[in-house]
Structure formats: structure tokens, C-alpha cells
């Protein structure tokens, strides 16, 4: 009888210990989250080690490439038509130009003056006239931006605007800085651009990225969740930023041919690839190109894409990510 009792006690004790372990089992690995502001957006970096880190890399980049900061290299370029570039600025300009070329000009970082006119006209509740747009378009064109060694030159009347790449590029520099600091894994968001690297301690399979539903009205804000290993995700959509003039919405992604908000039948494009600035640039390019014409471009860059059309049809192409069941 005594042996039986002892056995019972031991079994119960084990059961209790299992229960306690399960109680604590769901605990996620301790994480460090640092928040900040860069490229005009909320920036967050989440990692899982006891190491100090900050988001200064993103702010340093902003000081180099933002045309809203007076002394940035891009502002100086816009002001003086020529400027000396740091390596990082040069790199960003170069891959931006390459995307411009590969997308047949659908992506163009030289539309700064057009963005400005839309902004100022919207304040007066006026749609910019075709004439104004045409005359401003004359001074745009990615081919007119020349880079030799570390010097960039543009033509008079042109304004470089890296707004379409900035957030993705900020993701790149933050992750690079994290790696240099010996951080093994983490996930960064700059506005809506996301970058992740290393092994996710909370999920062996990778990082779960939620894609915001382009329809802002509905309650369920997630369009879908995707799973990536190392990579960057950027989204371009007609809902992010728009001008409301006379009750009509004009979104902010301009067609470099017309100067008007692009109209390729899409509400949203999400691009997944191995570089942040690139994913940002490509999502803009694809939004302007429309679904059919984007296929070749994404294929060239080995990038994946998720397209949501005006009629709410969804197209998914490319590899390197997995769509998760809801």
C-alpha cells in the first residue's frame, strides 16, 4: 500500500510540474523594442538580445537623403544641381536609377517638383492643370540624373525626391547597423516598410508579416499574413497618402508620363525581396505599371509580389515567402 501511495504522489507531482511548465510555456522570448521616428514615420526595431542599440543609423540616413532637410546631400543636389555623395546615398541613387530603367521609367525619383505642385494645389483645393503638369514634366526624367564616381549632377528645373525609397532604405541601414552591433536577429519597421533578419526566436519557421487591407473601412484590418525568412516587405497603395480636392481623392503615386496619380487598376502592391530600398522602389514601380507589366520586373529582381486590384482581385507571384491561412 505504501509503495502505491508513493507512486501516486510521484505521478501527481510530475503532473503538477508539467502543468506549471505549460503555464509558463507560452511566454514569448524576452524582447527589446526600441521606438523612434525616421523618414517622417514611426520606426520600431524589435530584437532579442541584451545589447544596447539605437535607431541613429536611420536618422543619419535621413540627414543625407531627405529633401526636407536643408543640408542633406539630396537637398544640396536639388539646390546646386550638383553634389558630392556619400557611399550610401550613391548606392541608393544607383539602384533607384536601375529600377527606373528596368521599369521603363515607371519608377522615377526625379518627380519632386510635381509632388510639390500637387501638395500646394491641394491646399487651395485645385487640381493642377494639364499645362502646368506638362511644363513641369519637361524637366523630369531619370536619364537626366548623372552619377560619376561620387558626384551627382541634375539638370536645371529638376528636383530629386527619394520619398518612394526612403523607408525601405532606412530598414536596410538599421539592419546593417544591428548586424554590426552583433545582434543576431530582429525585425524593423519604418512606417509601413518592414525588414527582418536572422532566426525568429518565437517561430522557427520565420517572421509573420501582416499586410494591411487596402480597404480602410472594414474592421478586419489584415488582408493576409505572409511568412518570410530574411527579407524586406514594402507596400504601395492608393490609401496611404492622398489629396482630397473637391471631394475627390487623388493618391500620391504619380505616373511619370502624365504627372497625374497613376491609374493602372491597382489598390495596393506589396513587394517582398532581399533589399529594403529595392522593395520600396519596386512596390512603387509595380503600382504604376499594373499587374501584367510588373511580372517581368519582379522576375528580374527575384522578388515576390502581392497585387490587389480595384475590383479586389488578388494576384500573388514570385517566391521567397509563404502566404499563411487566416
Amino acid at each position, binding site marked *: 500500500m505504501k509503495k502505491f501511495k508513493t507512486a501516486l504522489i510521484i505521478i501527481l507531482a510530475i503532473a*503538477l510540474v508539467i*502543468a*506549471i511548465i*505549460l*503555464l*509558463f510555456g507560452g511566454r514569448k522570448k524576452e524582447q527589446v523594442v526600441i521606438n523612434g521616428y525616421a523618414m517622417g514615420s514611426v520606426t520600431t526595431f524589435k530584437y532579442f538580445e541584451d545589447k544596447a542599440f539605437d535607431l541613429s543609423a536611420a536618422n543619419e540616413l535621413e540627414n543625407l537623403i531627405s529633401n526636407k532637410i536643408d543640408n542633406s546631400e539630396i537637398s544640396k543636389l536639388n539646390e546646386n544641381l550638383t553634389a558630392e555623395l556619400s557611399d550610401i546615398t550613391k548606392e541608393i541613387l544607383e539602384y533607384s536609377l536601375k529600377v527606373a530603367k528596368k521599369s521603363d521609367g515607371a519608377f522615377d525619383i526625379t518627380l519632386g517638383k510635381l509632388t510639390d505642385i500637387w501638395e500646394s494645389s491641394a491646399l487651395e483645393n485645385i487640381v493642377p492643370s494639364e499645362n502646368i503638369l506638362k511644363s513641369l514634366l519637361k524637366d523630369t526624367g531619370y536619364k537626366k540624373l548623372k552619377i560619376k564616381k561620387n558626384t551627382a549632377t541634375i539638370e536645371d528645373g529638376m528636383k530629386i525626391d527619394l520619398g518612394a525609397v526612403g523607408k525601405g532604405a532606412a530598414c536596410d541601414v538599421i539592419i546593417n547597423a544591428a548586424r554590426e552591433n552583433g545582434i543576431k536577429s530582429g525585425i524593423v519597421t519604418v512606417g509601413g516598410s518592414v525588414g527582418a533578419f536572422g532566426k525568429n526566436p518565437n517561430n522557427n519557421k520565420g517572421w509573420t508579416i501582416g499586410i494591411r487591407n487596402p480597404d480602410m473601412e472594414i474592421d478586419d484590418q489584415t488582408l493576409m499574413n505572409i511568412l518570410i525568412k530574411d527579407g524586406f516587405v514594402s507596400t504601395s497603395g492608393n490609401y496611404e497618402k492622398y489629396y482630397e480636392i473637391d471631394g475627390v481623392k487623388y493618391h500620391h503615386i504619380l505616373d511619370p508620363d502624365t504627372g497625374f496619380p497613376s491609374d493602372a487598376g491597382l489598390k495596393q502592391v506589396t513587394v517582398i525581396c532581399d533589399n529594403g530600398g529595392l522593395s520600396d522602389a519596386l512596390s512603387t514601380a509595380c503600382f504604376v505599371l499594373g499587374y501584367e507589366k510588373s511580372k517581368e520586373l519582379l522576375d528580374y529582381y527575384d522578388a515576390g509580389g502581392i497585387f490587389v486590384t480595384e475590383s479586389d482581385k488578388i494576384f500573388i507571384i514570385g517566391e521567397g515567402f509563404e502566404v499563411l491561412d487566416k
Partner: protein
Amino acid sequence: MLLRIKDSAKTVAVGGILSAVAIVLSYLESLIPPLAFLPVGAKLGLSNISLLFSAQTFGFPVTLAICIIKSGFVFLVRGASAGFISLCGGLIATIIMVLLSKIADKKDISVIGISVVAAVGHNFGQYIAASVLAGSNLFIAYAPALIIYGVIFGIITGIIAKVIIPKIKPLVK
């Protein structure tokens, strides 16, 4: 094995002592800094030892009185809401202790078993009271923990009770 209460004055006196013991034990417990992994309200429950003794020795009326006095003390020191929560937990524990004590012999249950069920009941009673006050179901994430900590602490206090009660009972007779 309920004592036939022959001497009501003695009962009151002992009841008073038990209440004081319960209050002191509860106060001592509150001095222990809260541990991070314990859900709010999961206490060691040392004061239950006092209630257990009363449930085994005197039955419902005295045990109820001790419970109310203890909650009254909480009410005075920590406020109405805390008093209400303490009362609800204590009432459920009291009812469980008294009922189980009556059938303990027939059903082959010892003080430890009673203590465990009372501890779990006490935890749930407190959370029910808090849920009513707060206007929200607070159990969702905590129910398993309430049971498990109730079992663990119930065993501990039960063992202490099992050792102490037989030693004190004869003094009371």
C-alpha cells in the same frame, strides 16, 4: 469530529483568538513582496489554517464568524472593494471547508484535500468578486494558474494544518 459546544463563552473566546490568528497570518503574508509569476491574488493562504481548524472543530457558525471578521479587517485597512473581494473568497472557502469536514471521514479525505479545494475555491471566489466589481470576465487567462497555485498552496497549508490541528484541539476541549 465536531466538538459539542457546551461552553458558549469558551467558543466565543476561542473564536476570537482564531480570528486574531487569521488576521495576523494574513498580515504577515501581505508583507511578502509579490512574486512576478503569481497571478494577482494567489496568496499562500496561511490564514486558512485558522479557518480549517474552526471548520474541523466548531462547524459553520464560528467559521463563518471568523471569515467575516477577517474580511472586516481587510475592509478597515484596505478599503471596501478589497473587503468585498476577501469576503467572497473567504465565504466560498468557508463553505467548502465546513461541508467537506462533515463528510471527510466517510469519503476518505484528509485536511490536505479540504485545504486544496478550499484554496482553489478561495481563488475563484476572489476572481468572481473582482470580475463583478470590474465589470469584466477576468478569468480567461488566469483560470489554470488559479487552480494550480490553489493546489500547491493548498497542499502546503494543508500539511501545516494537519500537523498543528491535532496538537491544538485537545487544548480547546
